[in-house]
């Protein structure tokens, strides 16, 4: 599904990714762990095409397509979704209008008619239940006045609406209490199919207790330095990253 080769990227003049290689097959969930500033968020932003990041070398292919020639919205239409670490507030744009614009833009890209209003609202209702998100939030502006937990649930709700094939969860567990974490993780699990793949970025084992990864990678200083099974995450939880750095040295 996703193949990243020798990826280098920078923000401003600062090189952050220094040769990342990563292959994700259909249906696989990969966890990405690493120290602060290692480049985890940069990698996810580069995959979704954030214009603030510049790719200087390497390639990313997604289902055979050259992702780096596509703009942000084209990548979204192709089925890539990122749950933001800090979801953005958009005052004056209601959740309902925002979602309708997103769903219909995707349908248009697929050559489908826009959804009828009644059908759209019906789908909204069904998907809301998945992540236990209140109807009253749908009439508010996007993320405005949402609590930290509501914002993260809202990200998973949007994921449910857009049915992506590659989901990137960028520190979805940060700022969540135990119950909210469970609701968000269970919501995500309900959306998984044999075809959907995921990259889960996290600092903690707890999220991985709910979302079982097939593969765990450790990113340090812009490179993937270690790859293992779920047991690797467990080991990091207990021993930190120092032992990996020592191995490298």
């Amino acid at each position, binding site marked *: 599904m996703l193949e990243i080769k020798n990826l280098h990227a920078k923000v401003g003049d600062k090189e952050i990714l220094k040769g990342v290689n990563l292959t994700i097959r259909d249906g696989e969930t990969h966890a990405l762990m690493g120290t602060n500033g290692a480049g985890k968020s940069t990698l996810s932003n580069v995959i979704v*095409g954030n*214009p603030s990041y510049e790719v200087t070398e390497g390639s990313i292919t997604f289902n055979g397509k050259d992702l780096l020639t596509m703009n942000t*919205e084209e990548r979204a239409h192709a089925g890539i979704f990122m749950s933001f670490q800090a979801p*953005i507030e958009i*005052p*004056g744009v209601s959740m309902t209008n*925002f979602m309708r614009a997103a769903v219909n*833009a*995707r349908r248009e890209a697929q050559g489908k008619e826009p959804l009828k209003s009644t059908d759209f609202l019906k789908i909204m209702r069904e998907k809301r239940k998945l992540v236990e998100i209140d109807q009253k939030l749908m009439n508010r502006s996007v993320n405005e006045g949402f609590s930290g937990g509501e914002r993260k649930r809202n990200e998973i709700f949007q994921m449910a609406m857009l049915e992506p094939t590659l989901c990137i969860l960028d520190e979805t567990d940060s700022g969540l209490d135990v119950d909210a974490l469970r609701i968000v993780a269970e919501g995500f699990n309900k959306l998984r199919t044999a075809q959907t793949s995921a990259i889960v970025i996290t600092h903690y084992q707890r999220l991985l207790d709910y979302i079982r990864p097939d593969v765990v990678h450790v990113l340090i200083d812009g490179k993937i330095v270690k790859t293992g099974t779920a047991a690797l995450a467990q080991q990091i939880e207990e021993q930190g990253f120092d032992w990996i750095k020592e191995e490298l040295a």
Partner: protein
Amino acid sequence: MRSEQQYIELYHEVSDLIKSRSCEVMNSVRDEAFETFRRMGFPTRKVERYRYTDVDAAFAPNYGISLSPLTVKPSAYIYNIENAPIDVSPYYHQIADPLDAITALNTALVHDALLVHVPKNQQVADPIVVDNWLRGTAATMMNRRILIVMEQGAEATIIMGDHAADKQQFLTTQVIEVYCHDGARLDLYETEETTPLCSRFSNVYIHAGRDCSVKHNSITLFNGQTRNLCDVYLRGEHSEVTLNGCVIGGGTQHIDNNTLIRHEVPNCASTQLYKYVVDDKAVGAFAGKILVEKDAQKTTSQETNANLCASTDARIYTQPMLEIYADDVKCAHGSTVGVMDEAALFYMRQRGIPETEARTLLKNAFMGQVIDQIKFEPLRQKLYVKVEKRFRGELDKCEDCRLCK
């Protein structure tokens, strides 16, 4: 030769004709107004209230003056001033600033005037609609004069629209004098949907007595060059006034709003909210002054000007001003100039919303706050649609216009 010279010559040529087509009350102040104009000429940009508009350049083209009679469709409350049901001499050219060059020129050249009169305690349910159509086969100057008299306890909504029917250069001067007697309630909406060939100079003067509620909404959807002045005189206690503005500029459009609210008596409230979205090479300017006189205790006043610069070539000038001579008041003023929220744009695009659509949604959301405040619901709904169309570039001519189709 500066531009005023041709208007001075014009007056000498046509003043007799104008007088013959006009009425006593208008003629009685005409020569004096002309004399003021002749003496002062057009204001330069050194004149404080004309800093942001080049008046001389706007009046430089050789316009023909329109002297065709005003057509007033028979409807309740609207009159040609000649057929006024009341004596208009205590109102005509009484509150307008005689030393403003635009007002002086308008008073000298205007031959016809419209009166909206709402009698005592009359509550008019349906809005009073005044549509102004600019028509002409050559560059034309229109001088428009409107008098609004709200008697004691009268209530009304007045909706005025400026439209251009022909793709032609038009120059409009407008003076509106509004008199709200004690207890009157007035919602006055002005919408401009003209063309890039149009220049508009509008001066609105509002007098409010006791216990009045006055709202003035100025909406510039499409234009060429526009300069709107609005002066409010709060002269009776416990009155409230709201001035709102919604400005959308693109291309090389120029929009300048200039307001003055004079709190002359205690216990009044004033609120202003002006929002601008300027794109391409458009220029937006807002200068608003709140003047609280010595005895106007317990005044509350809020002035807000918020601007969105959607391109790097667009320009915004903003100048909120407070001048307070009383010591027990609550006044605030502020302005902001921002650019497109890049983080929000990226967020929307990641969800698949194309960039142009995302920009439209953000601009629309920004303007929504002003449109939300429009009380008359059918107009509010219509403006939501029009503002969105404007941002989508689908409103390049007045769409209600029967003549454009």
